[in-house]
């Protein structure tokens, strides 16, 4: 089932196009990777998909049920002020907002969900700590736990492993694969890491001077795909 479909989409800021001519579909259960060089417009595309930015041209069709929440999102940068007082638990819990409608307080189920996700991301021991006093990698895990709380149907991740140590990166990929396979949550991930693309992706969207959209196998044999592998210091796909 198609969850998001884009036709001749152009994305950008204030009417200025950053990337154009994007045609692709994201189906439920996909592991969808978005690749491209720095500044090619990956983050801009993701923000447009999340309706944080209006599309410059073209349109995005989303499946109806996505409108009532269930979307998890990990931003590339969270412009959190340096002195913001917020404990890890408060932040992770705020991921449970989406589907609650106007109920003012968190239910026991939501609190338990936050605990589980903090456990998963290994920040349970930090739950009373102040977010601003954590290291960059720890902050990234906290934001991931928050995104996991929100993700019931689809999880959009903007460079999730940047700032994580190798062990945590491994765990992260394992966790995402599990969410994808077991819970049937669609994963949409921006990544510069060849591992994500080679080992996990079903489909790849490459943004750049030449755009590409298709299965991983086709991607690795296409021009942009070879370039991607080359830039990652690997050999071309045999």
């Amino acid at each position: 089932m198609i969850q998001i479909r884009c036709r001749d989409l152009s994305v950008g800021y204030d009417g200025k196009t950053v990337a154009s001519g994007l045609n692709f579909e994201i189906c439920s259960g996909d592991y969808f990777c978005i690749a491209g060089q720095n500044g090619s417009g990956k983050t801009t595309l993701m923000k447009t998909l999340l309706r944080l930015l209006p599309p410059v041209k073209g349109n995005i069709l989303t499946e109806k049920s996505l409108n009532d929440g269930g979307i998890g999102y990990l931003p590339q940068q969270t412009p959190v002020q340096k002195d913001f007082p917020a404990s890890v638990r408060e932040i992770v819990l705020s991921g449970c907002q989406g589907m609650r409608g106007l109920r003012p307080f968190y239910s026991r189920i939501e609190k338990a969900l936050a605990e589980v996700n903090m456990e998963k991301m290994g920040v349970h021991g930090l739950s009373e700590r102040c977010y601003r006093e954590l290291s960059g990698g720890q902050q990234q895990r906290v934001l991931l736990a928050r995104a996991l709380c929100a993700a019931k149907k689809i999880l959009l991740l903007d460079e999730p492993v940047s700032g994580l140590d190798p062990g945590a990166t491994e765990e992260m990929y394992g966790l995402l694969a599990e969410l994808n396979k077991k819970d049937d949550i669609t994963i949409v991930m921006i990544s510069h890491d060849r591992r994500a693309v080679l080992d996990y992706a079903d489909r790849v969207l490459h943004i750049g001077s030449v755009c590409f959209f298709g299965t991983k196998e086709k991607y690795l044999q296409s021009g942009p795909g070879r370039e991607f592998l080359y830039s990652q210091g690997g050999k071309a796909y045999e």
Partner: protein
Amino acid sequence: MNEIIEKLLFYMEYPFVRHALAVGVMIALCSSLLGVTLVLKRFSFIGDGLSHVAFGTTAIAAAANMTSSLTVVLPVTVVSAVLLLRTGRRAGINGDAALAMVSVGALAGGYLLMNLLSAGPNLSGDVCSTLFGSVSILTLTERDMYLCMALSVAAIAMFLLFYNKIFAVTFDENFARALGEKTDFYNFMIAVMTAVIIVLAMNLAGSLLVSALVVFPAISAMRVFGSFRAVTVCSAVISVFGVLCGILVSILAGTPVGSTIAVLYIGIFFVFCGLGKLKGRRE
């Protein structure tokens, strides 16, 4: 000491003193609750600008000889708040300058009008009390007092009901929006509540000192505490304590209410700075 207590008890006999204390506590509560959000959203300046708008409108209402200025001042301030918060989000030199223009314009216009049209014999006294809130909390009409109470209760109830939403929108607006929250609505709500609270707090501290009520409890609490809830609770406590002490001191010593409270807050702020340093060193 006994003398002071006796004097206090003597003053407590007067209903207007009791009313002033009750209204003061309510205003303190709601201004400190929302103050945390405003400080964190970098909106402290907007609160200041709004208080000047409220001053200008009060001046006009006074010049037009209206008995209860609250009914005019409140809507005008609410509208300005909504407009200002909208420009404030597109922060840049223009938003900043627009705010300064509005706030100075309202202040100057209000004073000019008061000068031109004032019917009262004591112009500088009137201006002074509107700016620094020297007596207004003690001379609220019964109607204004009930209005104040009702509005503060409404503001506090709104804050508690939407506490989690307000946190989400303050901490990371983009994320909340991605989750499908109506962030525009919550920002609008925050703007309206800010305006209401500024107008209410003007009765207590006057328009120049209103920001003290909004800003000081929040930044004091932020020195020491690291979670949103702790900061909110602590700033509410600081605020109520400061306002109660401020009103009592000003009654006993005959000092102006607004500036007494502001000075107390400054003292509290330095104490909390010290506590924060101590806490940092112990960890």
